[in-house]
């Protein structure tokens, strides 16, 4: 189609090889950035931020729990958007990103639930409470697992991708509905401590390390997503010449080191 010529930059963006080579250059920086941010955030939050008046030191888990929850939810939207791009523009790379986002998101959701439980024990006396936030997180975990399960249920990679993309989109439409329903159903959890439209109800000294951790988690997510996608690219394009050359080169390098 003639319109393809206007979109060459877009299609170049969709080339797995281009992605692999470009991200290869970014990786060292991304690793450093992520490690620095994560360490700084965790040390500041877990060590140096002031204690909470009511909860004492146990609230510190919020520095892990909240950012991880953000990313778990944002990750689902990213996965759904990647799926939508794959469906509309039939871009293989987009499907690969979607496929990589699923396990990362599922792991983050699980971590959010786990840290929530750790927070719950000293705060409410129990590891598990059926409140709006936690229940919605649990449902999000099942949505992720559904996308993962569907992806691997098909023999044909293509059909699995398309089905997962459709499911991810259906889930996206449902997430606000599910959240609102569950919220309506049980309002016990603390009100959201960060609202983007009004001042946070946390003290600024507690808030800053939290922001830092959120940025650190975004960086971590980007890193993890890129690493997973690169692995997926290598696996899917394993018959392409450039991948074979890479493998041969890596073989020579390690032989050179050993010898």
């Amino acid at each position: 189609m003639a319109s393809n010529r206007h979109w060459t930059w877009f299609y170049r963006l969709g080339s797995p090889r281009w992605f692999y080579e470009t991200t290869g250059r970014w990786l060292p920086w991304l690793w450093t950035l992520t490690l620095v941010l994560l360490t700084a955030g965790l040390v500041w939050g877990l060590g140096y931020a002031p204690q909470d008046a009511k909860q004492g030191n146990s609230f510190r888990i919020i520095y892990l729990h909240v950012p991880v929850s953000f990313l778990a939810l944002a990750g689902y939207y990213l996965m759904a958007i990647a799926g939508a791009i794959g469906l509309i523009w039939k871009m293989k790379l987009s499907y690969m990103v979607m496929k990589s986002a699923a396990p990362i998101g599922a792991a983050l959701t699980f971590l959010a639930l786990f840290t929530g439980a750790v927070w719950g024990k000293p705060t409410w006396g129990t590891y598990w409470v059926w409140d709006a936030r936690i229940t919605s997180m649990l449902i999000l975990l099942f949505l992720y697992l559904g996308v993962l399960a569907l992806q691997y249920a098909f023999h044909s990679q293509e059909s699995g991708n398309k089905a997962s993309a459709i499911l991810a989109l259906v889930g996206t439409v449902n997430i606000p509905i599910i959240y609102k329903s569950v919220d309506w159903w049980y309002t016990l959890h603390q009100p959201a401590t960060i609202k983007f439209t009004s001042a946070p109800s946390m003290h600024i000294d507690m808030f800053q390390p939290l922001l830092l951790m959120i940025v650190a988690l975004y960086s971590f997510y980007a890193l993890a997503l890129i690493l997973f996608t690169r692995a997926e690219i290598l696996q899917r394009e394993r018959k392409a010449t450039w991948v074979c050359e890479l493998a041969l080169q890596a073989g020579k390098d390690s032989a050179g080191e050993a010898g």
Partner: protein
Amino acid sequence: MSNVGFTAYLKRDLLLSYRRLGEAASPLMFFLLVSILIPLGVSPDPGRLAELAPGMIWVMALLATLLSTEGLFATDHQDGSLEQMLIAPQLLALPVLGKVTAHWLMTGLPLTLVSPLIGLMLSLPSVAVVPMMASLAVGTACLSLIGAVGAALTVSLRKGGLLLSILVIPLYIPVIIFGSAAVQTAVDGFNWLGPLAILAAMLCAAIALCPLAIAGALRLVSSN
């Protein structure tokens, strides 16, 4: 043509269900049988049963609907009718809606009509019977539509049934929340039209959006 459009597929699916009445009645039988398990498993005390009744009836209705959703497109896929449906000169959303409506008429509607009997067995307060029927009628229609999306996605998989349940139950949660809330608010003496209205809104959204998702899934995935 006689085989194009909503009514044609609705009538045909009803006829097909009628020819296999035993199979078609199984969700209803399941609903009735499971409702015996609750007093046996929990307690026959009417007070306790009354507390559990709104939610339990809804859970059982949900599971019964889920069980019957798997077969929605499976036979059509196996005998080649799905392919013919895909290449007929029609908007795919129409036969899809026809089939899902037939499914609801053979599953959700019987469940709704039988529910007062279950309510009686589980000591549901009589003030809640009409709200329960209303919420089941509207809610099971939502469940049929949402379940059909899962059925379309898993149509070409063998043993897609369990996977279907995993995919679809998270999406069912808003329906059951408001469905059982309608019954519970009635039991508590408050206005139950609120949750019912939200349920009806969900049904409207489902009728508008689900056929698109189902048609998309059938086209993309049945070529496996």
